[in-house]
């Protein structure tokens, strides 16, 4: 067998003894070394630690220990997730340096399942952005066309999987940050229901919106990762104590009779014709295979971007108040007093997008504007959520595009924040409503760039959502396509 392979395949060959975890991890690290110079998907890799973890897996297997479901599988993790090893940067100078004193819940879960964390991936600073161009360490390039963005903010994780540097990665999704880069890079990305995966150890951006989600090359791998990371954790008060089904076992549910909702609201002005056609072709295919297509209306979805760009910056401005030059990370030199210490540290170390959002959030929460902006946005959020509640009374999942276009060029939108925000137009409402959604490849445009299909499910509807996505992949081969540069490797 040749690496790269899927998460499921790697776990099988390690479990059977056909390959050692050390061999798998060494090949993975070599591949990162050979490939990542051109893509900058990774911010850090700890080769020695990864190999030593792999040695432990192999030793455990030799002793006859029961192996976890991800034993020997190399996994990359977005660098806003705390690890006690290496550094956690959030792509920001303000956390230079920061060595977490604890591991995030998802890290404990992954390592408990035998996964080997091989590195931390690039992101927009504090996960604020849609292109992975806003990090302190520079931009990640799209493996399908290095002149284009990988999407964001989990662009490093999506690019690493797309270039087959790792079989799986974790990203985080506050307004589409797992799904949009997955779409741009031609891989699968899931935003679980809010509360499904503990946020303990995730550096908070928008606390009512953030959710950690898996990225992999097919739906089965994503389901396996969700099996491992989902579940209750008392250390996150928003973690929901709901049973975790075996998502892999439920993938075989047939498409027959599944009700798929389609709303015109996702197919309006601004949507690229090729993206529209590919998404409709996917809907038609599922219809031919037995799914029922049901027209639905989501009348308030058009307000989602406006609503989000009040709520998310408001939450961000509060969350990022902790970066003050006192407790951790960077501190300005020679401050003249405590206020100057705060003001100068933050002014010097935050990048432009983070500053913009802190400013926006501070403004909408400030005295005299709170009701007009923040409270109003929370009420419109209720309307958006009710639209989905109503829709899910008559459908099981909703099909739509993930993004209005395929991957745009590096630098194309960096000077126009509003244009960048409108990138998230189809993904944001799932975060506002707290529901689950998945992005999966459904075609390539004429330039050879991947197109994403989004399927959205109700809260805690991952089981059905993943099975519909898997059934689609059983009938198509878009998820097996690889970027031209990596196909030969």
């Amino acid at each position: 067998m040749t690496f790269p392979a899927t998460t499921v395949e790697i776990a099988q060959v390690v479990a059977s003894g056909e390959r050692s975890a050390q061999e798998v991890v060494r090949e993975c690290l070599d591949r990162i070394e050979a490939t990542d110079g051109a893509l900058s998907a990774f911010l850090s890799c700890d080769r020695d630690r990864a190999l030593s973890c792999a040695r432990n897996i192999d030793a455990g297997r030799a002793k006859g220990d029961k192996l976890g479901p991800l034993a020997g599988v190399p996994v990359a993790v977005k660098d806003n997730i705390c690890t006690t090893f290496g550094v956690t940067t959030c792509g920001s100078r303000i956390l230079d340096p920061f060595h977490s004193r604890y591991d995030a819940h998802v890290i404990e879960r992954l390592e408990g399942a035998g996964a080997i964390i091989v590195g931390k991936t690039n992101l927009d600073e504090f996960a604020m952005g849609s292109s992975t161009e806003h990090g302190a360490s520079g931009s990640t390039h799209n493996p399908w066309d290095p002149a284009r963005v990988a999407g964001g903010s989990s662009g490093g994780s999506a690019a690493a999987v797309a270039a087959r540097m790792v079989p799986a990665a974790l990203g985080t999704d506050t307004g589409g940050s797992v799904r949009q880069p997955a779409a741009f890079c031609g891989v699968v990305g899931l935003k679980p229901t809010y509360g499904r995966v503990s946020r303990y150890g995730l550096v908070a951006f928008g606390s009512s919106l953030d959710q950690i989600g898996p990225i992999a090359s097919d739906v089965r791998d994503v389901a396996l990762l969700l099996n491992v990371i989902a579940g209750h954790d008392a250390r996150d008060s928003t973690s929901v104590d709901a049973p975790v089904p075996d998502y892999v076992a439920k993938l075989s549910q047939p498409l027959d009779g599944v009700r798929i909702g389609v709303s015109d609201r996702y197919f309006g002005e601004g949507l690229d014709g090729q993206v529209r056609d590919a998404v409709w072709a996917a809907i038609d295919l599922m219809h031919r295979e037995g799914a029922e297509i049901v027209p639905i209306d989501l009348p308030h979805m058009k307000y989602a971007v406006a609503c989000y760009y009040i709520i998310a910056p408001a939450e961000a401005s509060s969350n990022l108040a902790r970066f003050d030059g006192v407790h951790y990370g960077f501190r300005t030199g020679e401050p003249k007093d405590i206020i100057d210490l705060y003001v100068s540290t933050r002014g010097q170390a935050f990048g432009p997008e983070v500053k913009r959002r802190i400013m926006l959030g501070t403004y909408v929460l400030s005295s005299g504007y709170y009701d007009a902006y923040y409270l109003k946005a929370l009420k419109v959020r209720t309307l958006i959520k009710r639209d989905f509640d109503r829709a899910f009374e008559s459908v099981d999942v909703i099909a739509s595009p993930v993004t209005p276009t395929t991957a745009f060029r590096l630098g194309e939108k960096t000077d126009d924040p509003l244009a960048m925000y409108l990138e998230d137009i189809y993904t944001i409402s799932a975060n506002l409503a707290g529901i689950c959604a998945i992005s999966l490849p459904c075609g390539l445009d004429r330039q050879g760039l991947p197109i994403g299909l989004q399927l959205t499910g109700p809260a805690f509807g991952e089981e059905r959502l993943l099975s519909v996505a898997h059934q689609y992949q059983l009938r198509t081969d878009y998820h097996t396509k690889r970027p031209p540069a990596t196909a030969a490797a």
Partner: protein
Amino acid sequence: MASSLDETAVRHVAHLARLDVTDEEVVRFAEQLSSILSYVEQLNEPDTTGIPPTAHALPVTNVFRDDTVRPCWEPDRALHNAPQHQEDFFRVPRVLGQDGT
């Protein structure tokens, strides 16, 4: 809603956010934030009379743990990432004015 921010307002908000901004940033933020604020004006269109706000989407309100004593972090661990510390404290510049106010 006031859909534009002038440079004075930008400086005021930057002060509230404890964020040093350059003159150039003030000009740029005034323009960009005004453009974003005018985009979000559309939130005035839907009627929200009697609609409760949604701060988060969970059907969960307060979560309580047992009120029991548990070990907490040792000072060394808490201070590990501090840019400056002294004994068991985070070290910061003078908080009160030179004249002791």
